[in-house]
């Protein structure tokens, strides 16, 4: 009985990890690839550690498994954020069908200042009407 549960956890973990790998291979740009690898990969590791804890049935292994799960869940978003930020700043092109790139208008890459464009009353009055979103398509060299 316990073997069946362990098998289900192991297979679903492997399938989630495979999903992450397929996503990282097939998705169109850096941010979407990161989106696939971070979430599906973390869930795969979590399911595998649950399977390991169920298989060994000891308190030590359970503590280690929980430690790994907590560590992965804390560090995966941080690492993804750091890589995504670095990728945006070095000018990695985004997908052509990207809907919104808020930083494109408001972020000054040279001074590293972030402006909303609505700091003064005049800017607030001539707030841009809804137009086509602007995104960056070319690698900045």
């Amino acid at each position, binding site marked *: 009985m316990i073997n069946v549960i362990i098998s289900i956890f192991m*297979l679903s*973990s492997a399938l989630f*990890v495979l999903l992450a*790998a397929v996503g990282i291979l097939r998705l169109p740009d*850096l941010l979407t690839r990161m989106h696939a690898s971070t979430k599906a990969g973390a869930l795969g*590791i979590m399911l*595998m550690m649950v399977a390991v804890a169920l298989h060994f049935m000891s308190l030590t292994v359970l503590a280690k498994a929980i*430690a790994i799960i907590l560590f992965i869940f804390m560090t995966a978003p941080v690492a993804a954020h750091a*890589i995504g930020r670095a990728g945006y*700043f070095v000018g990695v092109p985004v997908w052509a069908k990207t809907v919104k790139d808020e930083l494109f208008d408001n972020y000054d890459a040279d001074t590293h200042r972030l402006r909303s464009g609505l700091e003064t009353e005049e800017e607030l009055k001539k707030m841009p009407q809804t137009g086509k979103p602007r995104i960056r398509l070319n690698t900045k060299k």
Partner: protein
Amino acid sequence: METVITITFAILLLALVLTFIRLIIGPTLPDRVVALELIPSILVSIIGVYAINHNTSSFIDVSIVVALIAFLAAIGFARFLERGGPRDD
């Protein structure tokens, strides 16, 4: 149980191969870093299956270390990318 372990190994190896393809072709360096970050995640899962297969709980320590090194490598690469330096995409 043996069959399930073999199938799991096969799926995880397939995932490793797919990630490796992205590591090789990935057009820019951040793409490669993302692939390089997923490889230790797959490795942690493989170590988990291996520990179950060999009934040895000591291998779990290895996966802790691998997860730690992966995080440090990702942060280091991100710092390197942001600070700049010679790159050859």
